[in-house]
């Protein structure tokens, strides 16, 4: 197991340096978006309209944090199950999205799109929400505030502990140790 430090937005080179099973410490910008925000992105794409976030090189964190207590940057903020976003993901990867942070299994379509567009799927530990919140140094709502915890937020993170689950070479870490 090697540990790699990377910074988001992600360059194509940074993505190529990652292999499934690597430990990653991510710093930089990530955007939160989960089910409801993805559904709205999909409507905009269908209508041929621009997305509220320029996705080139960016990382989406599938997370809906708890409300921040007074004086805190963010509430608890762990990952949600990424597979629910699979149906919307290839279209976002096509538009330049280069990284996703979540937990759980992805579809074959997402794995193939990661290879095609040079993107990576990174795992945050499900349920480690208080620990992961400590990595967030800034948080602001970008759009869809009406969605509450599902609003799109821009986060600045420092040394967020992650694991590479799908790399640009098409390796799926979950499947590498699966017992049939």
């Amino acid at each position, binding site marked *: 197991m090697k540990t790699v430090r990377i910074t988001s937005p992600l360059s194509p080179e940074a993505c190529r340096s990652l292999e499934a099973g690597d*430990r990653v410490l991510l710093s930089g910008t990530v955007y939160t978006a989960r089910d409801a925000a993805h559904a709205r992105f999909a409507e905009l794409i269908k209508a041929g309209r621009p997305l509220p976030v320029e996705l080139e090189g960016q990382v989406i964190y599938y997370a809906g944090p*708890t409300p921040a207590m007074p004086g805190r940057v963010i509430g608890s903020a762990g990952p949600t199950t990424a597979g629910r976003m699979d149906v919307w993901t290839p279209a976002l990867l096509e538009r330049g999205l280069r990284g996703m942070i979540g*937990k759980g299994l992805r579809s074959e379509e997402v794995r193939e799109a990661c290879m095609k567009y040079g993107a990576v799927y990174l*795992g945050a*530990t499900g*349920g480690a*929400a*208080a620990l992961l919140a400590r990595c967030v140094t800034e948080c602001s709502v970008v759009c869809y505030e009406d969605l509450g915890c599902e609003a799109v937020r821009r986060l600045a993170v420092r040394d967020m502990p992650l694991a590479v689950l799908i790399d640009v070479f098409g390796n799926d870490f979950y499947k590498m140790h699966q*017992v049939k």
Partner: protein
Amino acid sequence: MRHIDKEAFTETVAALCIKACTCLPEDVYDALLAAREREAEGSLARCVLEELAENARIAAEEGVPVCQDTGLAIVFLEIGREAVLDFDIRDAVCEGVRRGYGDGYLRKSVAKHPLCRENTGDNTPPVVHMSLTEGEHIKITVAPKGGGSENMSSVKVFPPAAGRQGVIDHVKECVRSAGANPCPPIILGIGLGGTIEAAALCSKKALLRRLGSENPVPEDAALEQDILREVNSLNIGPAGYGGRTTCLGVFVKSIPCHIASLPVAVTFQCHAARHAEAVL
């Protein structure tokens, strides 16, 4: 007869919501530490269990939720037949959940209609299960249930011929196909028998047991051990990253059923196995 005060009841429900979401039960914390020792040095599995133990410590110290999915609140009420409740008990539970999720800065995760998906904004309504017992007290248990693990849960009715091995194979297949999604290491609540709704409720109630406690029904205790061994051979491991610890414990609750049926309900509980209780 003993009068139960509405305000005390409501406040207790609110406090239990906050306690359950911020304090991981000691038995679960200890099980995570013990599991860490079983995983290989330098492995991602060990790393994950280390993170989870630290996460529980941070949450308790800072009074913040263990997991951002603070769940749909399941509230179990065991009402003594000599306790007098001169108020609408469902309304009072609702108010308690509303206060707890508001005052505790917990996430509001309830959709008003399964298809329309509008958020109710205050995490109500909860799911309430009431039962009558002896005595003059009321026992309140709040068990917030996260979506990731609940989405992997199921009820299936087998023919009796499926038998014990059929149950083991079914649970193993459920765990295998759920993989990393329910946030392993998981705890399994298994309801055997009854009808589909009774089996499902058994699988939820089973999860209120303490890890390491013995099932008083010998057949079920043996079944728990066999299922635990089988699912831990799957190498799903903590967070699904491979390893020995896919499951921390299996709790079986069995009830009589129809001569033609063998209902099996499997509730997946993530490692954030939260519940808190109080007696009024």
